[in-house]
């Protein structure tokens, strides 16, 4: 090999190219037109970086490395291919936790080895280990909660103080290791044990509805941990990719929290997500039901229909039927649009994924800011599987826990039809004032069955 083409140059040059591909890939992923190619670009970068790393000087244990890559990849490939779109958020949590665990493992190898590192390197190794371990165990809990494996929210009095103490213990142990005061294996082990426990106790009390924000936060934290371990290993690709994810993830987390009208501190430390706010102000009036055939006529002769889908629609697997209904109406000359609340589904953008799965083109889908002014000109607003995001009490009832959350103005449409299984309250347990309005009619039944009846009703008109 000629002198100017050393292995080191090849490795560093490839890492540079990888960083470029990652950034361009993320950039392309931020527009629906180019998004598909974005992940392919980033994937090419990952493949390149992985291959050249085998050329690293002074490496051994190649059989172990290859075995771990093959097993890890195979399991992830298999699980990623067969997960349902509705379960996507917890799958992201799981893969993210694995990344955090890997960052913690790098830190653990360095710390157990007790190499002769400078202070800054040691501090970063410990910090990356702490963050990675918290992200690992926290993400696993988030996965367990969304998957329904963990049903309770474990709360006890003094929980915040307990978590704070745990953090102090972890920091103290990490400080001892970083400052070379006592880096014995026992102390390193205790440090990681405290960090893992902290991730668990931090995440357990957070309710299911807030989980997406937490997953996004852990995603950003894993990025940061990867960047820190990149410093320790002198690996520029890890520093750049980790930091880009860290800052992008932080911004995404803020956007999500804002869309839910919550602050990040509120999500992490209040535990609202599941307990609900209890009874808000009294709602007057009564719910009035309607038959599918009447709704079919109403929609078939409307000039504009706005559909508001919620997670309930996806659970009932009704999205394909909804798209079929939409096509029927469009063929009759009705303007149909989908209105998506920022937190529809389990996380921002999740509903778009679920509608895309059913084949709904993304240019029929409008978000809250675009569509809210249009409800006044709509003949029918069809609410299917959504609840809190169309609750007018968020606008005017200061005592309600969802007061101030931006909502879709379904109540402003000439007619509002709510497809609902029964008369109970929604996910948050808050009574929905929309259901009692004079222009609202309830279409009771399972989402999929109800929409099938609507399709039959529209077809019957001919």
């Amino acid at each position, binding site marked *: 090999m000629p002198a100017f083409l050393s292995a080191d140059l090849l490795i560093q040059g490839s890492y540079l190219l990888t960083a470029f591909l990652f950034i361009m890939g993320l950039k392309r*992923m931020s527009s629906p037109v180019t998004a598909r190619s974005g992940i392919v670009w980033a994937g090419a970068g990952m493949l390149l970086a992985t291959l050249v790393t085998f050329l690293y000087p002074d490496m051994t*244990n190649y059989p172990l490395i290859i075995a771990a890559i093959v097993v890890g*990849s195979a399991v992830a490939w298999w699980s990623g291919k067969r997960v349902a779109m509705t379960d996507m958020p917890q799958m*992201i949590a799981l893969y993210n936790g694995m990344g955090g665990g890997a960052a913690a493992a790098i830190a653990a190898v360095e710390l157990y080895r007790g190499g002769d590192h400078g202070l800054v390197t040691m501090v970063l190794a410990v910090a990356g280990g702490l963050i990675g371990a918290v992200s690992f165990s926290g993400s696993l809990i988030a996965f367990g909660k969304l998957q329904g494996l963990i049903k309770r929210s474990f709360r006890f009095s003094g929980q915040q103080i307990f978590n704070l103490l745990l953090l102090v213990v972890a920091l103290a142990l990490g400080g001892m290791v970083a400052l070379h005061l006592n880096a014995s294996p026992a102390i390193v082990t205790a440090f990681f044990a405290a960090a893992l426990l902290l991730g668990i106790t931090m995440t357990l009390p957070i309710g299911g509805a807030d989980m997406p924000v937490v997953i996004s936060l852990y995603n950003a934290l894993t990025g940061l941990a990867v960047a820190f371990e990149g410093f320790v290993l002198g690996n520029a690709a890890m520093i750049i990719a980790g930091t880009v994810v860290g800052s992008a993830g932080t911004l995404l987390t803020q956007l999500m929290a804002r869309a839910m009208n919550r602050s990040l501190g509120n999500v992490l430390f209040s535990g609202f997500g599941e307990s609900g706010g209890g009874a808000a102000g009294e709602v007057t009036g009564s719910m009035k039901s309607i038959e599918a055939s009447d709704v079919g006529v109403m929609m078939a002769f409307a000039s504009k229909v706005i559909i508001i889908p919620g997670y309930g629609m996806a659970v009932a697997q009704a999205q394909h039927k909804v798209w*079929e209904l939409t*096509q029927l109406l469009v063929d009759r000359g009705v303007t149909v649009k989908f209105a998506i609340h920022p937190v529809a589904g389990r996380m921002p953008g999740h509903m778009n994924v679920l509608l895309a799965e059913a*084949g709904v083109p993304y240019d029929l889908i409008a978000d809250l800011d675009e569509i809210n002014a249009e409800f006044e000109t709509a003949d029918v607003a069809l609410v299917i599987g959504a609840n809190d995001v169309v609750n007018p009490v968020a606008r005017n009832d200061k005592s309600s826990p969802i007061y101030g959350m931006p909502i879709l103005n379904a109540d402003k449409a000439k007619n509002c039809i709510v497809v609902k299984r029964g008369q109970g309250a929604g996910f948050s347990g808050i009574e929905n004032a929309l259901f009692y309005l004079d222009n609202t009619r309830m279409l009771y039944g399972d989402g999929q069955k109800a929409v099938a009846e609507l399709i039959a009703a529209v077809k019957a008109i001919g």
Partner: protein
Amino acid sequence: MTGIVALYIFMLAAFTGYEVIAKVPVILHTPLMSGSNFVHGIVLVGAMVALGTADTTLEKTIGFIGVLLAAGNAVGGYVVTERMLEMFKSSGANKGGRSKGAH
């Protein structure tokens, strides 16, 4: 790599991440979170080096787990992101593509 150069990289990368995401429409939040989740799968190269330089059984065991987890992060992140993004189509593209639903 000197410490100060690493700090410059850190700062510039942080701005880059912010700028890349800043103008993203809500509809892409979930795929993008998944995509950035894939990108930090680059931890795989670090885990490979950690395992490749491990000596004791303890180091090798932890390194092995690290590579295993990192490979899962990278591959799983890629597969689910690709599956989600594959489905985004405009109505123009949709007409020529697969026909949907029972007409």
